[in-house]
């Protein structure tokens, strides 16, 4: 047996969890901003941005996150940029998040009944006015629950960045498991750490969902 105490393990894992949390927040915020751009391109009336956004979404949803990270990591070194793992991780997860959120939000915009478009058009509103005053306020309401729900996928996605060498919760766990020869305990604690981060988000998302379905539409 090793002489590393349980308290040491926990302290190290908490340090790793902080990096997991930091990366999740970064990716979620930046990915959300980029996701807005993806959304507006995806619902543009001009077919060119629409197709580009669709291709962007399909590529990120149709390939493994791990491959996306590898390509960013090795691709950047090809163009002469040696980027550290944390930057590749943040960049990769941001792009990944933007594609998913853009698509989730498009679904919310398209869930607004056609009658809302027709009624606002009949009141002589322009496309931008329809979006701004009628469609987006309603889409925003229904977008909150799935957006919070997706944040769970972002947190879990950060685990994959351990493979390109970013030392977050999973990577910390792997190193500790090797050092302590207690993989059952360590990976159990790692799983618990993710659960503690993700479960409140899942539960909150479910609560929001129920609230929307159970209540009035405003």
């Amino acid at each position, binding site marked *: 047996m090793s002489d590393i105490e349980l308290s040491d393990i926990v302290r190290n894992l908490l340090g790793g969890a902080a990096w997991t949390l930091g990366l999740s927040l970064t990716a979620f915020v930046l990915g959300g901003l980029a996701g807005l751009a993806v959304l507006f391109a995806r619902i543009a009336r001009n077919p060119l941005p629409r197709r580009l956004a669709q291709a962007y979404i399909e590529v990120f949803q149709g390939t493994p996150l791990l491959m996306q990270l590898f390509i960013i990591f090795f691709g950047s070194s090809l163009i002469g940029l040696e980027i550290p793992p944390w930057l590749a991780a943040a960049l990769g997860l941001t792009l990944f998040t933007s594609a998913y959120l853009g698509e989730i939000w498009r679904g919310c915009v398209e869930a607004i009944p056609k*009658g809302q478009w027709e*009624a*606002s058009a*009949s009141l002589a509103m322009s496309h931008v*006015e329809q979006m701004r*005053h009628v469609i987006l306020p*309603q889409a925003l309401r229904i977008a909150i629950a799935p957006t919070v729900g997706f944040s769970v996928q972002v947190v879990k996605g950060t685990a994959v960045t351990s493979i390109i060498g970013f030392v977050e919760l999973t990577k910390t766990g792997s190193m500790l498991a090797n050092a302590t020869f207690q993989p059952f305990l360590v990976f159990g604690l790692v799983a618990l750490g993710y659960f503690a981060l993700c479960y409140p988000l899942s539960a909150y998302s479910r609560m929001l969902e129920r609230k929307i379905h159970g209540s*009035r*539409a405003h």
Partner: protein
Amino acid sequence: MALVRIEALHKHFGSNHVLRGIDLDIEEGQVIALIGRSGSGKSTLLRTINGLESFDDGSIEVDGEHIRPQGTDLRALRMKVGMIFQQFNLFPHLTAGQNVMLATRIVRKMGDDAARDLAKSMLLKVGLQEKFDAYPDQLSGGQQQRVAIARALAMQPRVLLCDEITSALDPELVNEVLAVVKNLAAEGMTLIMVTHEMRFAREVGDKLVFMYQGRIHESGDPQTLFANPQTPELAGFIGSIN
């Protein structure tokens, strides 16, 4: 000069020729009742008049605004043509008052106070002045439809299009909506209505237009046509309704 002039209008949905040469003149203050079976093209015709549907050939002119198969100034047109829908289509995130105010503020660029006063008077006109702050889902179907009428009227349109506006209502709520429309007709509003309310069409309509297979099959004074249909198709249609 007719307020609305429709000439040689044609429209296809894919291979389906839904409007096959429509000619129709509507004078200011007239109440037109468009009737016919589902699929006869009456709703499509109505929706071409404010540009919700495009068309392939022919022309529509509303109060000097030309609608062409391509490149119409829809904003100018829609300032003059209001529309009321079967499903009300109130904006669920806005109160009744805000529903009425929205377009007057952002499209007609009225100030907040003026828009509010106008919205209040429009809601008063449809008998819902006390529902200014109610959200659509706190209103009955009939009340929602009356708010939708107030919302359209606040834009001060020259013509009001009504697309089966009582079809989604419970029977006991139909009359409160029809009463509002009847008042509008009495005030001289030009109305084009697709309707299944034959008694209402006969009482309030100035002109009955019977559509059949994408054409105007028969049209004229409602009383006369109901009493004396000239074609077997209209006779059959009236028979099937009653």
